[in-house]
């Protein structure tokens, strides 16, 4: 017998005080350890920046490198006034895994249920063999790819709606 699930409700506009502890704990990262940085912005269907949204990331491959962290492999980041976020990911060497560098959960006022996404690096040489990307229609895969910038960081925007709507997952 299957028990019926508890449904979701929006996070609303007011989680900041309650969520601050994990925001601050997970921001304590070692900037001297090998890492990459992904930055981006969260947009609505009109291209308006969402300045009261959140992302959380789970990075199973980074967790082992973060044994000194309070919550290894985890980040919680509120979007800033421009809808922006900056995510630092511990990585010992460039990815060639075909796996996401982070599983990303998106929350916002007006988002009735949090959304699951994931981000890959464009210079991951194993992307063509990715088991997860292979399940995404080819035309939409680019919404999950962070692009390398001149300064060595990566850029990945999240579009909740619209022509470039980010792929969101329902795991099986």
């Amino acid at each position: 017998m299957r028990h019926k699930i508890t449904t979701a409700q929006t996070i609303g506009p007011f989680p900041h005080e309650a969520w601050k502890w994990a925001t601050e704990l997970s921001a304590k990262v070692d900037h001297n350890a090998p890492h990459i940085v992904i930055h981006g912005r969260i947009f609505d269907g009109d291209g308006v920046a969402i300045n009261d949204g959140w992302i959380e990331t789970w990075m199973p491959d980074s967790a082992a490198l973060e044994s000194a962290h309070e919550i290894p492999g985890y980040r919680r980041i509120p979007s800033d006034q421009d809808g922006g976020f900056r995510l630092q990911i511990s990585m010992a060497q460039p990815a060639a895994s075909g796996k996401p560098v982070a599983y990303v959960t998106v929350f916002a006022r007006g988002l009735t249920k949090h959304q699951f996404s994931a981000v890959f690096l464009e210079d991951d040489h194993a992307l063509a063999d990715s088991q997860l990307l292979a399940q995404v229609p080819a035309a939409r895969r680019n919404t999950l790819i962070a692009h390398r910038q001149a300064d060595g960081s990566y850029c990945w925007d999240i579009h909740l709606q619209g022509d470039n709507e980010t792929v969101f997952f329902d795991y099986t």
Partner: protein
Amino acid sequence: MQFDVIEPGVLPDLIYPPYKSTVKRGPSQAPLRVRDEAAATTNLFASPKLILPHDIDLTVHGESAPLGEKIVVTGQVRDEAGQPVRNSLLEVWQCNAAGRYRHRKDQHDAPLDPNFNGFGKMLTDDEGRYRFVTIKPGPYPWGNHHKAWRPAHIHFSMFGNVYAQRLVTQMYFPGDPLFEYDPIFQSVQDAAARQRLISRFSLEQTVDDKMLGYEFDIVLRGHDATPTGI
């Protein structure tokens, strides 16, 4: 774990025009069903040392007791197979008895309570149970439409035992007259799913002359991939 398809209407509509900010923020494409082992089998580890004493009693932050009706909220967190979700991080947050959040953007003309912050966190126990003490939150206006008042609620954030079980939801109180007028509650089309968001009064959990008790059981998505029973 594996995650079955959810029946239509159980999850809230992502675009539900009566809740205005969903119109441009709700994804228009259905989520893509995918299999991913890491999402379905791994999760962060939250150490018990992260939980502080006041995290499970929201009434002891201040120098004296907060105003309002002190209550205890408890329940069991299980998965779809009925298995307890053990040692799992759970966060709660809410407004105070007057309907005001401790948040710089909350403009509601109701008083803050210096003795009430309105947030806490805990781990479920070996049976998946949780319990916290708080003040019954008040209703508050939110400006979505004329006379838009939220029914009293407590926000719940749960991490489950694997990443894909993550859930953020809201717990309501029985008999609230605002349910039928609230687009956030009504964004869930399935009436039974809405009812499952409403806690029940419990005389058993009521503590003597100190506080009334409410029970709110939670079922997270997912069940073990291995069939159990015969």
